[in-house]
């Protein structure tokens, strides 16, 4: 058989190299206030009352026979059957069904490694320098990637963070999107979401650049290159900015706490080293991604207030993933650390709820019983928090964005699917209406256009 293995988790470093690009472009022009600003606007919605479902609020709350009210794109109220439904609200019967916040994927490459995965569309790794904090993922995102639509209809995904790949120590800026189709990337950008810097430790950077006969070719080389980059950035930060440096702009943003750090890292010992590097240089790691050994240092992650964004049970595909175990999430939760279930995969993003359920079950079998309501937070609120949008979405609370999924059954069951999905109160998917789902430009006129997917 031919190999099907996704290249992404291997760091996408196995994809064809050879994109020649000038990594550090200098721009002496004035710094625009908000370049490439979001033009996202919520679509019209109707005042809606979801009634009678079991509601998970994303922050550990569970309401039997719950009521969720939203209007003008915002959650108005969440409560029990006693909650009065204002006049003019559409009533959606949720009896026997479940309601959660919209699903959020903190680690996606949709758009930058889109379908079809042809070389011409491969825009996720700027593999021309081990540090490319100057590149922005949003400049690679192809909004017509059909993967966005699958994530919406099968996965209930309403927000997602698109990251550069992990070939580089500093891969560039990530972008957070609303999962609402648009002709432009700006039209998908999550309004007000902070940027993140994608970093990567371990095998990928040293393999990619070591193979080119350049630094880094070892893990110690990884740290050396990183530390020097931070030292240079601090010097830049303290300078007059007469000559702008796009990469150092990004690092300065991190040092000032304006830009988050999403750090691809597998091994426990290496994460501990990164935490010390962050202390040394004066920045904060928001989340370790993949983190298959996070369970070995749950105490350390908790003490440093760092989330682990992980698969349920991927392991063994590369050396630094050899110690991955299905109990990772549950053991982290037991230790009080922040758990996020991520996909890093165009198929996995359609089943984040299922991955979380698998991880939960693995914990339960060793006596670590994490309640359903908390597990729902692994793919909703915790992801939002680690993306810096936790105050806006990720949970069902009055005043927050009405990003909502109505599931036709328990979202932690394999037999359940999203039935309706609202983004900012606008119904973007309805399983009962064949036309109420997005079809990308790419799929028009192709076999299977508009099919159930």
């Amino acid at each position, binding site marked *: *058989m031919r190999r099907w293995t996704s290249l992404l988790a291997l760091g996408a470093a196995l994809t064809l190299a050879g994109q020649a690009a000038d990594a550090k472009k200098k721009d002496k022009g004035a710094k625009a206030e908000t370049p490439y600003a979001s033009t996202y606007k919520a679509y019209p919605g109707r005042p809606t009352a979801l009634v009678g479902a079991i509601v998970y609020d994303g922050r550990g709350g569970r309401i039997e026979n719950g009521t969720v009210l939203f209007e003008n794109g915002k959650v108005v109220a969440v409560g029990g059957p006693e909650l009065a439904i204002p006049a003019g609200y559409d009533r959606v019967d949720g009896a026997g069904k479940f309601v959660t916040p919209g699903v959020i994927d903190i680690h996606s490459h949709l758009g930058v490694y889109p379908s079809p995965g042809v070389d011409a569309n491969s825009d996720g790794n700027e593999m021309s320098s081990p540090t490319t904090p100057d590149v922005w993922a949003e400049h690679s995102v192809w909004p017509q990637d059909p993967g966005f639509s*699958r994530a919406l209809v099968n996965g209930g995904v309403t927000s997602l963070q698109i990251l550069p790949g992990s070939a580089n120590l500093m891969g560039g800026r990530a972008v957070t999107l609303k999962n609402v189709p648009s002709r432009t990337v700006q039209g998908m950008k999550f309004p007000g979401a902070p940027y993140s810097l994608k970093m990567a430790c371990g095998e990928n950077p040293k393999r990619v650049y070591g193979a080119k006969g350049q630094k880094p070719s070892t893990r110690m080389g990884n740290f050396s290159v990183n530390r020097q980059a931070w030292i240079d950035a601090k010097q830049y930060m303290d300078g007059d900015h007469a000559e702008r440096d796009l990469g150092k702009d990004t690092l300065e943003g991190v040092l000032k706490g304006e830009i988050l750090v999403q750090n691809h890292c597998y091994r426990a010992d290496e994460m501990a080293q990164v935490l010390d590097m962050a202390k040394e240089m004066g920045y904060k790691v928001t989340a370790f991604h993949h983190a298959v050994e996070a369970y070995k240092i749950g105490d350390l992650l908790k003490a440093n207030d760092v989330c682990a964004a992980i698969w349920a049970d991927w392991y063994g595909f590369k050396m630094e993933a050899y110690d991955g175990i299905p109990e990772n999430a549950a*053991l982290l939760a037991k230790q009080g650390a922040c758990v996020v279930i991520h996909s890093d995969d165009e198929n996995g993003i359609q*089943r984040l709820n299922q991955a979380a359920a698998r991880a939960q079950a693995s914990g339960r079998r060793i006596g670590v019983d994490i309640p359903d309501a908390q597990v729902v937070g692994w793919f909703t609120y915790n992801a939002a928090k680690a993306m810096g949008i936790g105050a806006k979405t990720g949970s069902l609370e009055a005043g927050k964005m009405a990003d909502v999924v109505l599931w036709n059954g328990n979202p932690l069951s394999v037999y359940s699917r999203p039935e309706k999905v609202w983004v900012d109160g606008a119904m973007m998917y309805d399983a009962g209406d064949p036309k109420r789902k997005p079809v990308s430009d790419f799929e028009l006129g192709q076999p299977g256009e508009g099919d*159930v997917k």
Partner: protein
Amino acid sequence: MKSRLFIAALLAAAPLPVFAQDFAVTNATLATGDGGAPIEHGSVIVRAGKVVAAGAGVAVPAGVQTVDGTGKWVTPGLFSAVTDLGLWDVEAVTDSNDMSAEKSPFNAALDVAVALNPSSQHIAVSREGGVTRASVAAFNGGSIFAGQGAVIDLGADAAIVMRPRAFQYVELGEAGARLAGGSRVAAHTALRNALREAREAAALTPGAQRQGDVLLTRADALALAKVIDGSQPLYVGVERAADIRSVLALRAEFPKLDLVLVGATEGWLVAADIAAARVPVITMPMRDLPATFETLAATMSNVGRMKKAGVKVAIGMFAGMDQPRYAPQQAGNLVALTKMPGATGLSWGEAFAAITSVPAEISGFGGKLGVLAPGAVGDVVLWDGDPLELSSAPVEVWIDGVKQPLDNHQSRLRARYKDLDETYLPKAYDW
């Protein structure tokens, strides 16, 4: 037919399981793998490594050890069709990986059986997930022919190979085109030429010379002779509807080809043709993206639609990060589709059969593997709930009637790190 006789002799000579015990699982929810609905209060009886009875109201003979299945499910072991089990320790550590051989002068002659490692962690982890049998494929190196796969058992013993050289694998479509030199045209030409050379090589009298214009080594040509006469199935990796038609058309030239389609992401578009040709399909059902230009019509309803058209379809192709233990989740998702307007899924029984009896039948072990029925091997899995549900896992696994250890590298790690207490000694002493 030679090879079949040989295989029969091998099977007859295989030693009986040493520790096979007679046992029965009683009062469990029983799924036999036959495609039917689960049976409440079912029992299974295994004697001398074989199933002797399975059903409701089965009486357990005196002296047979009984496992109470109350509140649990009992099923046959899962059959993982077309996988990489036993071929690597760490997939990306190439020294540990025997999936493919890019630099080998051989292709069709390659035989995975010699490399299979029963001590692989990947096998141990899959066994813990209820997988008891598999067909292990060769993976393409430098040729459209990947080589010969084997049917294995996952028992914790040295005898891993159940049937060596169980099938040949050829890759067509986009990947085959690249391997053949750049086009589908080249792939089909290479395939036909190889089969011609195989026919000629097989017909040679001892000591006779092959003709001059040969591209295949003698070993490769002789390996393919078994494909031409139908004594060895030919698994064909193919996705696009048009490519599937081209594969089915091969039978006009090579009538004895015993074809199995692997992939067939656009199979639903040509389901009637596949059914009419009586060619089975092994596929990964949750692929619903136009990942390539040969999977534009991908949909999760592919399996359901093909099944409805009369195609025999198994779930498989678990390799790399798609682990064999995920098969129940894939099957469960097909059941989920039955509730989705416009989608075509499978009933619970059909979905479970697609990861047990159907892949076993396609692999040549119908009635023997993937089912709980009299005469089948004693591969039994006791689950703590509905095996297709995300919350469920095996609690006991028997292979050939032998109770299996479920420990592995992962279970040892989880035992060590269940707490992080190092008050008295480092974690390295906790084992």
